């Protein structure tokens, strides 16, 4: 079931794309992740993951505007596909189900 399974980092990237809505391109994703995940996120890793997600059909991309700081190169904007949304929801569902199974007492004991 490789197609729908999400890795931890993949899930984070997918979520970030969802949060950034129309500004989801590699550098922005990288920055956003760095803020929220509180860890240094390498551009190369993000690129690789984006590439993989696109291969899995979870995101789609299109070229957008070019800026001077990018040396006249256009940005590639990512948006979630239906499959991407579904797999995010599925991941959340699994977690929620598991969360619900934990009794409050047990958690407090830890």
């Amino acid at each position, binding site marked *: 079931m490789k197609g729908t399974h999400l890795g931890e980092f993949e899930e984070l990237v997918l979520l970030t794309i969802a949060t950034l809505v129309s500004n989801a391109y*590699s*550098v922005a994703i990288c920055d956003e992740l760095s803020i929220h995940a509180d860890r240094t996120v*390498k*551009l*190369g890793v993000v*690129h*690789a993951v984006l*590439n*993989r997600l696109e291969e899995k059909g979870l995101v789609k991309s299109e*070229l957008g505007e*070019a*800026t*001077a*700081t*990018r*040396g*006249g*190169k*256009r*940005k*590639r904007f990512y948006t979630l596909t239906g499959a991407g949304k579904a797999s995010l929801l599925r991941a959340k569902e699994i977690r929620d189900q598991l969360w619900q199974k934990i009794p409050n007492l047990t958690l407090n004991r830890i």
Partner: protein
Amino acid sequence: MKRIKTPIANSKTRIEKKKTPTPPQWATRFLSFYCRPELLEDLEGDLNEFFHRNLQTKGAFLARLIYILDVLKFLRPYTLRKPRLSTGNFMFASYVKTSTRVITRNKLFSGINIIGMSVSLSVGLLVMAYVSDLYSFDTTLDNKDRIYRVISSFHPGGGPAKARLASTSWKAGTLIQQQVPGIESMTILRNWFRGDAQIGEGKIPVTGIYADKSFFDVFSFPLVKGAAPTALKEPRSLVLTQTTATKLFGNIDPMGKVVKFDTVTYTVTGILQDLPTLSHIHFEMLVSLSSINVAGPQLPGGDGNYLDWTNFFSNYVYVLLKKNTDPAAFTAALERISVRENASQKPDRKITLLAQPLKKIPFGTGMGNEIGPVFSIIMLYVLCGLAGIILLSACFNYTNLSIARSLRRSREVGIRKVIGAQRIQVIGQFIAESVIISLASLGVAFLIFLLLRGQFLAINPDLAKTFSLSLTPRLGFGFLVLAIVVGLIAGLLPALFYSKINAVQVLKDASALKVFRHLTLRKALVVVQYTFSLIFITATVMGYHQYKSFVRFDLGFRTDNILNVRMQGNRDEVFVKELAALPAVKKVSRSLLINSLGSITGSQMSYRSDSAEIDLNYVDANYLPLHQYTFLAGHNFLPKQKDAPQTEIIVNEQLLRRFNIGHGEPAKAIGEVLTRSGKNLTIVGVLKDFHYGTLDRPINPTGLVYTAEPGGYVNIKVSPINVPATMTAVETLWKRLDPVHPLDAHFYDDQIEEAYSQFSVTLKVIGFFAALAVCISSLGLFGMVIYTLEKRVKEVSIRRVLGAEKGGLVYLLSKGFLLLLGVAAAIALPLTWLFFQNVVLANFAYHQPITFTDLFTGLFIVGGIAAAMIGIQTLKIVRANPVKSLRAE
């Protein structure tokens, strides 16, 4: 992979570039080199963005560094571009199919190229087989990479010049054995065992090499019978090769049999498998080195004792180094031995030992006393160079003719391109075509090669003995590679030319194609071809003239109808008397050497306080009259008793000049006395200068000393009538004198030709190449003429209709080609002349001047062939009915 840039963004970056630092360009270029096109823009943009960010926070240096590191980090499998040259672009089956069609359709083109390429390839194959043989010498031996031969370097006569001998002293061998570490085994050989093997009643002459007991440790020649470690241990042991065993004993098992040489009996202790043809050493048998009594009588010829350090003319030392021994350390050890031994020697006897690897031995490097035949490395280069030129010439033909027939083919290429052929595919098709032609030629070339091989080996008896030129899988592979390389070279330029064709232009109007842009290139190729052809042929003509002049040279004496018989150690007294009694024999004389054939002997002589090296020959009283030497003063020797002391000498003018005797008047020299090793020789006659050596050697001071029985040769002046009968008579007499050895008699004139055989062999080879070069370039020119004239048929027809003269037209059409020939001649002839004048003839002290005939004969031949071809073709076009060609549109 093209980067799409919006004009605005582009201009912005350009402005910024001036103020702010930019990321390193090479890194960007590297990124775009490896990155997949669809990912590239995005990646590049991101990197730029980060670069700008880092520029603000971290400074230019760090920003650049991070940029570079990031570029490298992006080098991941998913970003890598797929290899651009996918095999999908090459359509081999299609290439082969269309190529075969093209080849069969254009019979003239294919014919010319296949003939030219086959002929040149066959020569290429021959040279390749020759080179391959040279590198295959001694390959059957184990440990061949660790075997070294110890050679000697010394200064002859104590002068500054260095000479090297393949031989070394016996003592050197012994010293190496005792003192040099790191040697697995070593063996000492000694040349020149000659004798008549006596088995029962019969006598059979055989030659052999002395070898010590460890011979088989160094050389792993397989023994058929006998034990390798002991076969050569005992004195008077013989190891025969299989051929020699059969020659001596027939079918009887020779092991343990006794063979008598003179009075000494030897025992056969081993039978050796016949040596491979490709062996640097050849012998009929091995004699144990221990047979030589080193303490015995001194050697003949004043060489001193066997074991002297300076007796380094007949012994050969081979060493098998241990696996971990450094050859340099071995050389250093040899050097130390030499220094120690030389300390007590005179300057002309200081010998330096050197090590020569076994595999280098077949490549002669001007060393004396070689144990077997060697092949000059220069000759090898020359052969390779000549073959290369011939091959290139054939390639030029292909290139020229392919481009010349563009009128026909360019439209085809145009259509291909319109259908969607890429440039690389057009190139592929044309290369495939040329390779197919060259492979087809390889088939024909191989047959020619088989024919040529026999001819080549027959040039020189040495070649046939030492080369097999046999086919091996490796050689076959080499042939294939050669053919493919030739095909590639030939097809490269046409392929590039056709691939550049603009499809639209060609299809609209084929004649608009600028084929003539390549005319300079094609002209240049033709000129190069003809230059080489002319150089070869002129060199052959000049060489032949010189060779003839050498053979017919006035040596200062007569050589016609003189039969020289080598005495082979027999006493000549009776023989000479019997010969003189034959009716066909006019005169008989005796001499130690035959003058003017290249073998020389000499001695230090002094006159008053002056001394010089004098060339000598020992002759009897009949020698000078028989050869009709010219006396300037004095008289011939008077016959004396056999054992009378040598007291008289007849000298040449050069000797008088050297010692300044008689001051130009030969008569005054009569009675003067020369001394040689304390003994006096009185000058009784002065001869006009004659050639004692070959013509590459200047005339030196020369003397003839009287000896009643010099022992070398008997010279017989015979009547020119019925020579075969005379020969038979001489042979009968010889048989009576020496039943064992066959008669060795040659006419003087033939021997002189033989003395220059090196020269004539070279001439034959160059002449052969000249013929090939002329053929190939003529074929090429022939094709060129046809294709070029094809384009001008209409022009000629119009000119004819307008009333042009036939003669004028022929001149108009052919002058371009003749001009090319003229240019080639202007380059080739002076070059050849200079080369001969300064290089070849500089080596010959006596030679004929180069004549105009020499210089221009070749040009006439080549020019004649070219003119005939051009003339026939142009005439054909000029004579055709102009109406026909004009009407056909």
